């Protein structure tokens, strides 16, 4: 016992000495942990960015992708003032798509045709809108791609679960980290079925079990990728790594052999913003875009019939 006490005193003294010897500036950030031992990522995070989703190409049609399909200036995207980056210190990278190295998503031509049809036929049927405009979901992983507003995410961690509350369309994504298997093929879900695990300090989330009604990205900021369909073979692997007090590095690898010629990867930071307030985004409850667009289409049909 005496030896043990002496050892403990020595250890405590050594710890004090180490702390005192370390200058303030050299103190490295240590990953905080929750009481059940998870790396602690809790708090409010935002994904404002100055970085474009893809590397631009000469053949791109930004106005068209944004919803201005007939050159009249009308689109479905949010006004640019909503992308409130003014008082945020943001870096600008080449593109959020980091793999393939071209920074371009390897979309199969048929999928671009489906997107083109959808964008030009939103006045016909609500299924031609993205699930975001229908107020169903921005999808997984699409829901975390920057949209310019409604950019808050709250991470909460409890025993056996990591939860991510998405401000936009009020999603509360419950990710079990207890090693349970995926739900299985009876479930075909808009957001797929998320199963998480910790690899060191990285939360790895494996997502499968998607339906084929969703789109891999929904918002105008994703440009050419917006409204690209997803198949039931979509498989996403997300990696959340908190690298300092104020930053989570988020990465996702997306594969869907029916839609993309190879897997591709997005990497972007989430910034801690404790004073950001998430507001309720009651989307469907106030959705006038879908009925107004459809009734505009029917009015156009009537005009066309009358002039024939």
């Amino acid at each position: 016992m005496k030896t043990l006490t002496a050892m403990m005193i020595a250890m405590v003294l050594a710890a004090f000495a180490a702390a005192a010897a370390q200058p303030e500036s050299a103190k490295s950030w240590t990953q905080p942990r929750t009481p059940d031992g998870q790396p602690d990522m809790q708090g409010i995070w935002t994904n404002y960015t100055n970085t474009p989703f893809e590397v631009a190409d000469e053949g791109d049609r930004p106005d068209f992708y944004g919803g201005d399909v007939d050159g009249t200036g009308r689109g479905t995207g949010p006004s640019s003032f909503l992308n409130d980056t003014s008082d945020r210190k943001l870096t600008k990278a080449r593109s959020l798509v980091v793999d393939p190295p071209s920074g371009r998503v390897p979309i199969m031509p048929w999928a671009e045709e489906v997107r083109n049809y959808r964008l030009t036929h939103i006045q016909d049927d609500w299924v031609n809108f993205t699930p975001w405009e229908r107020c169903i979901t921005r999808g997984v992983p699409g829901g975390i791609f920057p949209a310019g507003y409604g950019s808050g995410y709250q991470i909460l961690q409890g025993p056996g679960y990591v939860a991510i509350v998405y401000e936009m369309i009020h999603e509360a994504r419950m990710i079990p980290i207890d090693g349970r298997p995926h739900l299985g093929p009876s479930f075909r879900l808009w957001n797929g079925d998320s199963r998480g695990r910790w690899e060191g300090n990285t939360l790895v989330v494996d997502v499968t079990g998607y339906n084929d009604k969703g789109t891999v990205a929904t918002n105008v900021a994703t440009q050419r990728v917006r409204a690209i369909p997803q198949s039931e073979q979509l498989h996403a692997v997300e990696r959340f790594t908190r690298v300092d007090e104020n930053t989570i590095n988020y990465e996702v690898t997306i594969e869907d052999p029916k839609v993309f010629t190879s897997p591709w990867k997005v990497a972007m930071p989430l910034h801690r913003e404790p004073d950001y307030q998430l507001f309720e985004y009651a989307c469907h409850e106030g959705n006038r875009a879908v009925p107004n667009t459809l009734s505009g289409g029917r009015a156009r049909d009537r005009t066309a019939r009358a002039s024939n």
Partner: protein
Amino acid sequence: MQNWLKGAVIAVVSVAGTIAISQMLRSPVEGRAPDVNVLRTTDGKPDLNGIWQAVGSANWNLLDHQARSGPVLELGAVLAVPAGLSVVDGNEIPYQPWAAARQKENYENWLSRDPEVKCYLPGIPRATYMPYPFQILQTASNDILIAYEYASASRVIKMGKAEPPPVDTWMGQSAGHWEGDTLVVDVTGLNDQTWFDRAGNFHSEALHVVERFTPVSADVLDYQATIEDPKVFTRPWKIQMPLYRRQEKRAQLLEFKCVEFVEELMYGDLRKKTGNEPKFSAARLRWP
């Protein structure tokens, strides 16, 4: 009994006794002996983590109601209205006279007026006793998340004092604190768009709800909510019901994104007719 066995038994009993005593010391409850079966977090608070669901038919009608036929003739006994006992103290909602008339009108026009029919956010307290599970995630940093399966609704209960809500919303603003073993949630900032049930019971934007979640065992919570709305009721009133833990090993919230199920209902007449749209047979509605 052999000596080693006696020793082991005494050791186990004394450990159990120490745990029980330390739990009692950690949880002073006014007037109630703490239940040793209540699960606790490492800081001694009741552990509410899990998937919970109300059983009963309060979502059909908060008050006493007998069974009756459902609204669609072709569905027969399927989706008929089950009977249920009142969850309201005294089986009376103290409406002001104009509001009693409005509730009756709401009931008669249920299908066109109930926000649930359109998959709208349910509000509080209705989210608690809809026929879908919800999950409580209690965190060490003290915010408590409740995620509801219905319509992907959720709310984060901020522990401690809250600023006045900046704007009225469907789910309101929830501020929580512990009173002994009871999680008390003060809900303000609710709009006037939600209902209490499918019987047309309603409120205004002056609604103020105080909820009390008290564990009575590891698998049962006592849920009480005091409802106050001076624009609609003559006095505050109270509902009470048990919430049960879902016991299935695989229990988890599943996707119930009902927007997709109501688009045809809400926008069907605006779709371009191509001949490929889904066909519907003429169902016969009868309500009330």
